[in-house]
């Protein structure tokens, strides 16, 4: 199977990534606490696959994406891209690698400079990295615009002249300009209407096929993630709680949080109008996460050990990883 072959070809690996933000206040910047946005995430994405990353607001999924493209430097941990350690690189050494890793943002309104023409926005990367002559760059911008389905005569237009869906196409063209290998898609369709959302998803899939792109697809929309991903990782309060192939995760979710999350999604299918296991309470603050398993105060299956020790992220069955004591025979017996 191609999935087997793929798994040997890791494009990017994260090892024990931790990102903490100090909270300071007052003019002397007294430290009041730490936001543990990402807390020890280990993860690899294979070349050509789409890894979906889901979780609720504040779970650290966007921070993890930003660490991956080194918009943020992790507090601890290692990021290897094509075998190269990104964290130890200087700004200058990092520059040629920036081509290879790009990002598409959620909000197509605030992520495009309103004072620049579309041509300039898409071509900026080509200019910075000195790709070809001016004329060649202009040619390339047009090719990219065609690729994402923008009208070529709009090259001198400004972002405000476009609809949300078209703006997202501009963002995609910009990300493609430097022929990246990995694109972090941070909620790329969340701000769009459903009919437009489908157009953009189709475009992302077409481009992936054509250029063998690798995606980290961050989203809170579980239906979209199910559709687009090969594997899916679930994050809760800075930690991964479950990781498996898409079908395995959606059909056989093991972690109580994953089960509750999937159960909460309203399905547009009147036959399965279901009685759901409702999750009580809110996500706790990442400034003071609960002791032990972060999920235990909301978990219906919590045991005494869960409030005391942190479960490890373990491979439960082949390629199905989970962080929960329920699947740890020793802890369960104790």
């Amino acid at each position: 199977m191609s999935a087997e072959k793929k798994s040997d070809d890791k494009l990017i690996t994260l090892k024990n990534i931790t990102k903490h933000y100090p909270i300071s206040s007052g003019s002397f910047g007294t430290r009041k606490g730490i936001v543990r946005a990402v807390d020890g995430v280990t993860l690899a994405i294979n070349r050509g696959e789409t890894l979906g990353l889901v979780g609720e607001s504040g779970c650290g999924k966007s921070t993890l994406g930003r660490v991956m493209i080194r918009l943020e430097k992790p507090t601890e941990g290692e990021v290897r891209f094509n075998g190269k350690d990104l964290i130890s690189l200087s700004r200058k050494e990092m520059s040629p690698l920036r081509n290879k890793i790009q990002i598409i943002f959620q909000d197509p309104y605030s992520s495009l400079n309103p004072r620049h023409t579309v041509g300039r926005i898409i071509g900026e990367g080509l200019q910075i990295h000195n790709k070809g002559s001016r004329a060649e760059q202009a040619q390339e911008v047009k090719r990219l615009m065609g690729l994402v389905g923008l009208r070529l005569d709009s090259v001198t237009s400004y972002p405000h002249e476009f609809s949300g869906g078209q703006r997202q196409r501009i963002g995609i063209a910009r990300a493609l300009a430097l022929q990246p290998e990995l694109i972090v898609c941070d909620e790329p369709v969340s701000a769009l209407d459903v009919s437009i959302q489908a157009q953009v998803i189709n475009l992302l899939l077409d481009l992936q096929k054509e250029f063998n792109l690798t995606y980290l697809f961050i989203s809170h929309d579980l239906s979209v993630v199910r559709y687009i991903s090969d594997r899916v990782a679930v994050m809760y309060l800075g930690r991964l709680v479950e990781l498996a192939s898409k079908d395995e995760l959606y059909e056989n979710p093991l972690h109580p949080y994953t089960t509750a999350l999937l159960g909460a999604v309203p399905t547009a299918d009147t036959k399965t109008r279901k009685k759901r296991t409702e999750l009580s309470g809110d996500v706790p603050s990442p400034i003071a996460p609960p002791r032990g398993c972060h999920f235990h105060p909301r978990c219906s299956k919590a045991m005494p050990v869960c409030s005391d020790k942190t479960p490890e992220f373990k491979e439960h069955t082949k390629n199905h990883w989970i962080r929960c004591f329920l699947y740890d025979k020793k802890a369960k017996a104790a």
Partner: protein
Amino acid sequence: MPKTLLEVKGLTTHFFTDRGVARAVDDVNFELLEGETLSIVGESGCGKSVTALSIMGLIPHPPGKIISGSVHFNGTNLLNLSEREMRRIRGNKISMIFQEPMTSLNPVFKIGDQIAEVLKLHQNLNKKDARDRVIDLLNQVRIPSPEERVNDYPHQMSGGMRQRVMIAIALACDPKMIIADEPTTALDVTIQAQILSLMDHLSKSTGTSILLITHDLGVVAETAKNVVVMYAGRVVEKADVKSLFDDPLHPYTIGLMGSIPGIVAKDKKIRLDAIPGTVPNLFDLPDGCRFSRRCKDAFERCYKEEPELFDYKGGRKVRCWKYEEA
């Protein structure tokens, strides 16, 4: 047979601006029965929120104006009422829940006082009775330890808790009807599930009718009994929720269902059946059917004449020439 609570007839709301006239809502008809949950679904700019604001008499004028139509609530045409009379209905007989619970609550007042405000205004309750009722309401919307939370400010609460406070305000005077405009759009899925089941429970226990405005077909499928689909200011389809999902009629409704991952296309091997193009400009609507330029099934007549809302079997209605004979 439950009685009709709200009857909207020929409602037309336009906005007069420097750029021209935006025909935001055009000849919208529907009725809401007592105890029923009716959903208006559509994408941005389809006129669903303007419809809600028109019912409540909250259209900013100028530039907005209700050109024609009637909104009968319990037999009275709300459009004929003075602002003073309308104020006695808003928050009392009809209340509203908005999308953004942070901006619809006042940040400098305690949430208990904000709920009590409605009670003092409409029911002349004294301070003590109002406080007891507030705690009772917070209990109803399942806010834990209400005696303490009464004194919280909005910023001390999470998004889900704030939306519960909004629901408590809406419920305060035992309204006949609640208009919920995207009530769960800003919330995470697990919190959305809590709020939806709370609304469902409350409408069943109090008999309050709900007009649920949303863009999310999943939310519609799980909560509504009947559905109105809007597109570019027009009602394009009306049906009970089961028929709508089992057998959508209008090409736009079919397109919406094909666009959402998981309904038709379950895996990326099956391509999403996206609707091409974008919604028309409300200042410059096309001739004929407003959906014709994006419609796969459009034929000559669609580009010239706009279809009316035809009757279809099972009490359904659809605005499409394909169903003229049906």
